[in-house]
């Protein structure tokens, strides 16, 4: 294949003709298959030949990039690149590097190619001189600006995508280049912008430089100077730097806050350019985030009677008198029409005020409240809306005692504003009322007031979608607040009645109507309405049960209608809507089922089961969330029906098996695993005849590397559920399961990856649950037969594993990253082992790590863990004294 031929093909990719594009793709794919190195060489040659037409060069670089990088499988593509002979790679690398600054189009494709290659090679210690050469491109006097700009861009890409640890040793040289490019003496704005943008990506690995006073001063100086550039893009990028520096290096900011940062960001907040104003506000939002976090850290330290590692400098509180007026001013600068997805300084100011209130607590009131009183009846809607927004935003921070009288005072105004002529005012008012329910519900918890507010809200449910949506969310909060406020009978979690009881039925009725509004897909209204309905049901007292019953019938009825509609809907848009609706109805169904009296559940379970099975049937073999939703709903039905579910088992199992086999759609598989757990708890040993198949499926799932890892811990604990349910029948699976657990217990993960640390905790907790279930199951099955020697015999089946299990518990005990809940589970298992195996356990449990674990458990903040630790210690003492 000649270069000319290739250029021709590349040109054709942009003719706009589908056939040409298809041809080109096929051609390139073939070429890559036949001889990838050759293709890469040719592409890089085309890129690096300045005389080629720009389209061909750009397309060559694009194809090169596609061969180097795939979002879905970064690692595999990197490894494929590394397997290419070194001389070829060097040829390509040189071409790309040399192409920097030679392109006539932006952004530089060569910069991206160099970036991707660097990400593959630098972590493996290759292309060692790259960074230096890029830096030299930037800092050597006389280099053309194009090359300097492209080189800075390249550094930016590398900094953005590479594991930041790799660059730490070279952070000095990199920063030298970036700071050089950012200086105010730099005359080329493009260079300065590229440097500023790259700086933003380099901040994470510059920790050492930030720890050094003089280096930090210098960086801060150039960044602050860049904020004063006349170029808007540079200003924004520089402000972004400040935002990020504040979060990463808060502890070092004291020196700069007063003289520079405060003034720069206050100016930015007032800017007429939205982009700049947004960064200014974002800076203070980040200050609030950071200081709120530090307040928590300090509280925790105080509780444990020690000094906190870091302390807040209270910049946000200190800046209140200056900050709040600017934010309030911004609140009055609303867009004429609201677009949900729009982000503008006005909205950002609202969020910032909210965060500020959380930091400043009671102090916020004196700065915000005068504005609220002055503007809440203002003739201009912008002021009214801003007043309500400001009021709603400050509700969470102050303590209830301080904010309650103010909330009480505001309610009559708010009720009036719910009928305001301006929709934005009504929207924000509905939201604010919800905030009152959420944070100061004490202000509204009396019969009369609640009736007035409830009526007003119910009436406005027919308002425009954006208003109705906020009203729905308010009902969600109201349901929770009223329920929390209700008194429960001594030995019951469900109150007999609550303040919403008199109009519960009406609210639910109106919410059900709202879920059915034809404009329900606007402003998230349908979701919000269903969610409110579920929250009302979930938080309903006993005297509202009749409405719960009625709702069950309505939901079931709708579900059936949707199912039949689904079968004759071809329009994909409609199908999506139907799928969403089925999800919502399934979720609502769960909330009513959970409230159902045990005697009533069997009366309605037949039609519910029919509907759910129908959903599974029509969606069988498709990738659809509907299957997941139906399975989850079935799980709830299993839970509610208990043993009575047995009559459906034969109908459900085929779908359950299908779902367990669906490893690609792991949420479906996970839902099915959940149902197996529910079945175990409800059917107990009646599940035994089906366990051969179930266990086979579960073991298959565990054996499949492609199955999403999150399902696996769940499967392990489900083993425990099954063992607990079927007791002695579990013996036949014991060998397999113990082997599997043995492997799972040995799993290890990287200490730096928080996701993986969480996963390891989950996996281990799954193992602990499984062991616990097995041991309790074996012991109980034998003792219920009344033969304790048999119990011993059953338990002997696990004896061989005891040393390993104890070792596993010790591993957990020593793990500094163990979760609170895993401590409880591990201690529980210790107790089970001791009560089951008695004396022979003494040798294992009288060991330091176990002692420490038990001591840690006794100090736990979690009641359950504490109780377990006390219990286990006592059981150990018992066998010791015997």
């Amino acid at each position: 294949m000649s270069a000319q031929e290739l250029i021709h093909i590349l040109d054709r990719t942009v003719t706009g003709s589908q056939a040409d594009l298809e041809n080109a793709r096929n051609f390139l794919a073939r070429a890559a298959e036949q001889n990838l190195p050759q293709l890469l060489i040719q592409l890089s040659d085309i890129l690096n030949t300045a005389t080629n037409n720009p389209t061909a060069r750009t397309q060559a670089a694009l194809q090169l990039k596609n061969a180097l990088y795939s979002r879905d499988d970064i690692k595999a593509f990197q490894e494929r690149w590394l397997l290419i002979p070194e001389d070829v790679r060097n040829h390509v690398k040189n071409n790309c590097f040399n192409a920097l600054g030679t392109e006539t189009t932006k952004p530089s494709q060569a910069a991206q190619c160099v970036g991707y290659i660097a990400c593959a090679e630098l972590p493996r210690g290759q292309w060692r001189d790259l960074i230096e050469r890029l830096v030299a491109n930037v800092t050597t006097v006389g280099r053309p600006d194009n090359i300097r700009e492209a080189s800075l861009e390249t550094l930016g890409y590398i900094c953005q995508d590479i594991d930041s640890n790799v660059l730490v040793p070279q952070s000095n040289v990199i920063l030298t280049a970036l700071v050089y490019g950012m200086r105010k003496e730099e005359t080329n704005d493009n260079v300065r912008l590229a440097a500023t943008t790259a700086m933003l990506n380099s901040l994470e690995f510059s920790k050492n430089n930030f720890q050094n006073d003089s280096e930090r001063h210098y960086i801060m100086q150039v960044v602050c100077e860049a904020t004063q550039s006349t170029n808007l893009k540079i200003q924004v990028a520089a402000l972004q730097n400040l935002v990020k520096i504040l979060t990463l290096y808060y502890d070092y900011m004291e020196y700069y806050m007063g003289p520079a940062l405060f003034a720069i960001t206050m100016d930015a907040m007032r800017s007429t350019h939205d982009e700049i104003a947004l960064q200014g506000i974002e800076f203070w939002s980040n200050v609030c985030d950071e200081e709120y976090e530090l307040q928590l850290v300090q509280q925790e330290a105080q509780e444990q009677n020690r000094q906190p590692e870091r302390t807040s400098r209270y910049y946000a509180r200190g800046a209140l008198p200056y900050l709040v007026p600017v934010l309030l001013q911004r609140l009055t600068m609303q867009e004429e029409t609201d677009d949900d997805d729009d982000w503008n300084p006005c909205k950002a100011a609202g969020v910032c005020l909210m965060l500020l209130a959380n930091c400043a607590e009671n102090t916020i009131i004196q700065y915000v409240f005068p504005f609220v009183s002055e503007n809440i009846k203002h003739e201009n809607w912008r002021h009214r809306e801003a007043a309500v927004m400001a009021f709603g935003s400050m509700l969470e921070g102050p303590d209830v005692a301080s904010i309650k009288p103010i909330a009480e005072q505001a309610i009559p105004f708010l009720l009036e504003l719910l009928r305001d002529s301006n929709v934005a005012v009504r929207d924000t008012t509905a939201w604010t009322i919800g905030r009152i329910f959420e944070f100061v519900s004490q202000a509204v918890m009396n019969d009369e007031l609640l009736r007035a507010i409830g009526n007003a809200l119910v009436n406005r449910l027919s308002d425009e979608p954006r208003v109705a949506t906020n009203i729905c969310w308010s009902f969600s909060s109201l349901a929770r607040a009223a329920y929390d406020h209700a008194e429960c009978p001594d030995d019951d979690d469900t109150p007999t009645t609550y303040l919403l009881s008199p109009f519960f039925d009406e609210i639910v009725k109106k919410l059900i109507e709202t879920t059915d509004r034809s404009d329900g897909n606007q402003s998230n209204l349908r979701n919000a309405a269903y969610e409110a309905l579920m929250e009302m049901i979930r938080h309903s007292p006993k005297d509202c049960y009749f409405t719960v019953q009625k709702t069950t019938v309505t939901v079931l009825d709708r579900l059936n209608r949707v199912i039949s509609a689904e079968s004759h809907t071809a329009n994909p848009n409609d199908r999506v809507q139907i799928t969403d609706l089925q999800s919502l109805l399934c979720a609502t169904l769960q909330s009513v089922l959970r409230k159902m009296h045990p005697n009533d559940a069997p009366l309605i379970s037949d039609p519910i089961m029919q509907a759910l099975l129908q959903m599974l049937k029509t969606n069988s073999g498709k990738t659809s969330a509907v299957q997941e939703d139906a399975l989850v709903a079935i799980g709830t039905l299993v839970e509610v029906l208990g043993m009575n579910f047995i009559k459906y088992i034969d109908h459900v199992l085929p779908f359950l098996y299908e779902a367990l086999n669906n490893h690609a759609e792991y949420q479906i598989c996970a839902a099915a695993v959940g149902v197996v757990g529910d079945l175990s708890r409800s059917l107990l040993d009646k599940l035994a005849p089906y366990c051969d198949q179930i266990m086979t499926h579960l073991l298959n799932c565990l054996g499949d590397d492609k199955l999403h890892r999150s399902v696996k811990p769940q499967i392990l604990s489900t083993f425990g559920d099954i063992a607990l349910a079927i007791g002695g029948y579990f013996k036949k699976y014991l060998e397999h399961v113990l082997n599997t657990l043995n492997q799972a217990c040995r799993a290890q993960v990287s200490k730096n990856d928080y996701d993986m640390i969480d996963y390891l905790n989950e996996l281990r907790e799954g193992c602990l649950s499984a062991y616990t279930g097995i041991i309790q199951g074996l012991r109980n099955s034998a003792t219920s037969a009344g033969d304790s020697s048999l119990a011993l015999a059953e338990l002997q089946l696990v004896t061989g594993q005891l040393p390993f299990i104890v070792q596993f518990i010790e591993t957990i005990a020593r793990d500094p990253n163990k979760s609170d809940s895993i401590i409880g589970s591990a201690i529980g298992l210790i107790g089970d082992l001791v009560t089951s195996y008695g004396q022979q356990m003494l040798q294992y449990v009288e060991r330091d790590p176990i002692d420490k674990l038990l001591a840690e458990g006794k100090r736990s903040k979690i009641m359950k863990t504490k109780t377990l630790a006390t219990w286990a210690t006592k059981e150990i003492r018992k066998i010791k004294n015997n």
Partner: protein
Amino acid sequence: MNSSLSKNTSSRIQSYKHHGKDSDELRRRRNQYNISLRKTKRDEQIQFKRNLTVNDSSVSAEIIDDDDDDEQCRCLNLNEIVLKSQNSDLSICFQGIRSARKLLSIEHNPPIDELINLNFLPILVQCLSYDQYPELQFEATWALTNIASGNSQQTQAVVDANALPYLLRLLHSIHSNVCEQAVWAIGNLIGDGSRLRDYAIELGVIQPLIEFIQKNIPITFLRNVTWVIVNLCRHKDPPLSLNIVQEILPALKYLLSFTDVTILVDCTWALAYLLDCGNTMIQLIVESGMISDIVRLLNHNEIKIATAALRAVGNIVTGTDEQTQHVLNQGVLNYFSKLLKHQKNKLNKEAVWFLSNITAGSQQQVQAVIDAQLIPDVIHHLQHSDIETRKEAAWCISNLTMSGSVEQIQYVVNQHVIHPLCNLLQQHDAQLLQVCLDALRNILKQIPEENLEDVTKEIEECGGLDKIENLQTYSNAEIYQQCYEIIEKYFSNENDDDDDISSMSQVPRNDIFPFGNNSANQTVPDNNFKQNNQHFQF
């Protein structure tokens, strides 16, 4: 390269109003909720098997006592228990029932209503019929016992589940623990009120109970049986029918011969209750010849027994003069000096109440009280005791002044009754004031002419006259009238000796004892009423 901006921005948008709650996020939350529910269920299940119950709230400051944490809290899966209990495999059923029983034996708030709502009662009743599995019968009966120990509604629910015939059937079980537990359960049902009592009698509860007493059953069992008999006798609205009482009296007589404190307490209370059911019932018991036994128990060192016996005899002397005399003939007054000096206020009060009924009788009976040297003690209580006892003492004196002879009244005056009586005139209780004023007026009226001045002087000197004058401003017309008459007749210059005070109606005898049997019930220890047998070791 704008990734940091867009990330920040999108997370801030989530915080604006409810923008973050799109359908994916809501689905994620629902999933999270389901996962946490499942985890809770699993935890409950395994905690339950550990016989360990845990409240999943997190506490920071609370410290658990090492040795007493088992009952700290609870949160168990009742549904699972109910399911197990329905299992056709009786050994599994047994596990379920026993778990339920254990839960029901928790001291604080056992989940009685929850189990009733889960329709658990028919399951329990069903288990009563499994003669092949006495342990199961035992556990089920125990569970029913504890449910029946709840409030009336809960007790009624047990009866509505038709438990009683099955429980009665178990009284014939060859397993004594089953038998005994059934007795207990039945006792709780009967104790609820006369309606359930009569229903149990209709079903034939009396005969087997009496047979138990005749058989040589262990003392612990006999205590339970006695307790059931108290519950039979407890309610008087309506009282037990006479022929049923006749059936059980021999049993009670037999039980009175025991020395066991628990049995004696219950048995005496049973009689005290019966004696509160009118003169015919009193007569029946008098004729059974048990009064002397009861009187002897007044001297018992165990205060609970003495209390019950005192109530019993006290109830007799509310009967006819003959019935009262019958008690006096048993030498009952010999025990009263001790009772009046007892350190327990309640015993003092009851004893004075008893005496007030005697002093309301014939002059001969009044004389018996005087002869027993009890008046100084009564006057002591009139002066120094708690107000309830002082009130009884006032009644006692007032009754005496009404029915006593001149000499008897003079005797009381000589024992310095005037001052304490006058002291009571500053109380605000109208009835008490009237009683005291009656006593004073009776004394003034009955006292021999030559001593009248001494008495009026004494009343004046101890401030009594001032108090009587003050009382004229009292809003009660009768009291005003009484005071007016006393002052008019004995403390004004123009004495009108002949004027009678017959306008004052005499207090009818039945109303003399207003606290009588209503307040009497308060002295019954509440825990006797119904028992939850959690504290027992089996």
